[in-house]
């Protein structure tokens, strides 16, 4: 009989042998609370018994809505021990629109098919109404509300689902990405393999990334568990409020690894003062992973220059590429050398889709080579492999690909073919490394988070003076910008009154802010019939962006107001 591969539950069973293995939570006063893996396991067992007493069985989905803290992990591992499938969802944003949050959460719950939500009592109250519309048989409960009963051991098979995380997919509303135990374990092992412990050094990681995000959960938590190591965590809202907390925490605990999206490095540049950095030493930070969104070469350079004074080394900066559908990482830059930026001829890249090095060309950051076990292809429009230097769709194959989008075989078949995943990203290979060059899929990616363009477009549907179903939302990384920008293109209605037209740009921005919490960086009001459509009348988002960048999309009124995206004042 073949040996069953090790998975999260085996690691949980074995963890806690080293006295230093566990989770450390840092709060706003920079005070730490520590929980060993053995204690986490015992508390998770109790939660498992409680869920089983409620009727949660193997394969049942359990939604988890918690801020960063011990309760998330008790619920997460408790669900896994019960053979159930955790579905981490995001808690409400501070001062955000409550009704929008509830509406969107209800949608995600519906799509995940969750039977139970585990959360905090204050969130259970907020979510009360959302539950009416979903199939949540067991309602919303806190860990304290769970019945007390001894757990029964359920041994998950490697092919059982271990996790559902949401992604924008290639088109349409957010999609539940279903990952098996095998896939999640394979990804965690790949990552853990990059940082072997030595007698001189135990690797450790600091993360403020959300636990409903693959880079936070799969990238940080599982490798720490697999290695019985300590992981230091704090909440994403604390990072945004005080970015210096990230650098200070790294320094205080002598952490060697910490990942974040491009926007976070930019936020440090803009919001961390020299005074905040007093006593901070970043020389122990060996790997500053940078992924989950487009990477700005300017931000990388500025970060390395600014923080060199506190010991930050350019070799530490490590651009990477991955996506939820692959559990997480697909390519890594070389850990031992500084990140690589190459200049490419602008015209050839934009017009011919060919990458040719050119001294004064556009700078693009290399995201490196496939991680062990992964392969990639660059595929042309006819489905054939393209030669190095040609821009095409990035297809990947590896041991941690998703099983599919939960309950959506059609969307799954669109991206998973013969064991290969069409990422929907555009890219090319140059000198053996992958460079990204935009997206073929319709996804808006801002601050490391994917948004379905439909959610943004739907927000302006009711704005007076707009033509029905004639809005396109896209994001991309403009040259020299510190991050991706969000552009919204709308067509005015033929019947729009002059005062409605005048109010349109503001009304659209307000509608998008209110519904999604996103600020529109560029807004273009177009004449009716201007947006490119397919023969069946569907809007073509990628083509809209191409026309706009080529200067071929005539605005009714150019309302472009360029804001420094991601920059707070």
């Amino acid at each position, binding site marked *: 009989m073949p040996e069953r591969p090790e998975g999260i539950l085996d690691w949980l069973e074995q963890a806690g042998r080293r006295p230093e293995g566990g989770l450390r939570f840092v709060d706003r006063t920079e005070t730490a609370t520590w929980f060993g893996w053995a204690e986490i396991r015992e508390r998770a067992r109790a939660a498992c018994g409680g869920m089983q007493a409620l009727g949660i069985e193997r394969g049942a989905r359990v939604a988890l809505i918690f801020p960063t803290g011990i309760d998330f992990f008790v619920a997460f591992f408790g669900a896994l021990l019960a053979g159930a499938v955790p579905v981490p969802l995001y808690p409400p944003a501070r001062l955000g629109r409550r009704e929008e949050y509830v509406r969107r959460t209800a949608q995600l719950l519906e799509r995940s098919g969750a039977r139970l939500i585990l959360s905090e009592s204050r969130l259970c109250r907020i979510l009360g109404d959302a539950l009416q519309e979903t199939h949540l048989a067991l309602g919303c409960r806190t860990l304290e509300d769970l019945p007390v009963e001894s757990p029964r051991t359920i041994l998950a098979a490697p092919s059982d689902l271990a996790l559902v995380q949401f992604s924008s997919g290639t088109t349409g509303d957010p999609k539940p990405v279903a990952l098996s135990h095998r896939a999640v374990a394979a990804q965690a092992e790949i990552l853990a393999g990059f940082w072997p412990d030595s007698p001189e050094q135990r690797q450790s990681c600091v993360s403020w990334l959300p636990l409903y995000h693959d880079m936070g959960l799969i990238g940080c938590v599982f490798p720490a568990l697999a290695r019985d190591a300590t992981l230091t965590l704090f909440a994403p809202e604390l990072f945004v409020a005080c970015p210096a907390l990230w650098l200070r925490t790294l320094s205080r605990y002598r952490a060697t690894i910490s990942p974040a999206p491009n926007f976070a490095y930019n936020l440090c540049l803009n919001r961390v003062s020299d005074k905040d950095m007093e006593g901070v030493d970043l020389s122990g930070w060996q790997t500053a992973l940078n992924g989950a969104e487009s990477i700005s070469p300017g931000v990388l350079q500025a970060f390395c220059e600014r923080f060199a004074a506190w010991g930050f080394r350019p070799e530490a900066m490590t651009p990477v590429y991955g996506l939820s559908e692959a559990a997480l990482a697909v390519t890594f830059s070389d850990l031992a050398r500084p990140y690589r930026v190459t200049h490419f001829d602008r015209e050839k890249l934009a017009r011919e889709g060919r990458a040719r090095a050119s001294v004064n060309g556009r700078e693009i950051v290399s995201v490196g080579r496939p991680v062990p076990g992964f392969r990639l292809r660059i595929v042309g429009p006819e489905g054939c492999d393209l030669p190095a230097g040609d821009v095409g769709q990035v297809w990947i194959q590896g041991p941690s690909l998703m099983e599919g989008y939960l309950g959506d075989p059609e969307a799954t078949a669109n991206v998973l073919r013969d064991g290969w995943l069409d990422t929907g990203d555009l890219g090319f290979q140059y000198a053996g490394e992958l460079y990204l060059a935009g997206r073929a899929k319709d996804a808006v990616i801002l601050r490391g988070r994917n948004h379905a363009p439909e959610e943004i477009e739907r927000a302006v549907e009711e704005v007076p003076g707009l033509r029905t179903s004639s809005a396109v939302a896209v994001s991309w990384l403009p040259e020299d910008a510190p991050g991706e920008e969000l552009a919204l293109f709308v067509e005015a209605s033929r019947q729009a009154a002059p005062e409605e037209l005048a109010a349109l740009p503001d009304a659209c921005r*307000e509608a998008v802010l209110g519904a999604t919490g996103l*600020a529109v960086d560029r807004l273009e009001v177009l004449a009716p019939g201007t947006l490119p459509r397919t023969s069946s009348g569907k809007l073509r988002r990628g083509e809209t962006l191409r026309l706009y960048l080529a200067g071929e999309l005539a605005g009714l009124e150019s309302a472009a107001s360029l804001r420094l995206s991601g920059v707070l*004042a």
Partner: protein
Amino acid sequence: MILAGIAEVARAHLGWDGVVTPDLRLIEDLRLDSIRLLTLAAEVENRFRVLLDEGDEAGIETVGDLVAVVRGKLDA
């Protein structure tokens, strides 16, 4: 006093250079996206040494609402 403090936070941390009045709505008028709303909440907490929780934040739509919640916390 509280209004002036919030105006100072808006100037220093949110890039707002206009006058801050109680009737201004945080999202529509001050144009705060989710990251700026979070910054506002955190900076107001720092400045007035109060803690806002989910319940406090539920009904806040305008600057005036925020002033009232902070005042309630300070008086308590």
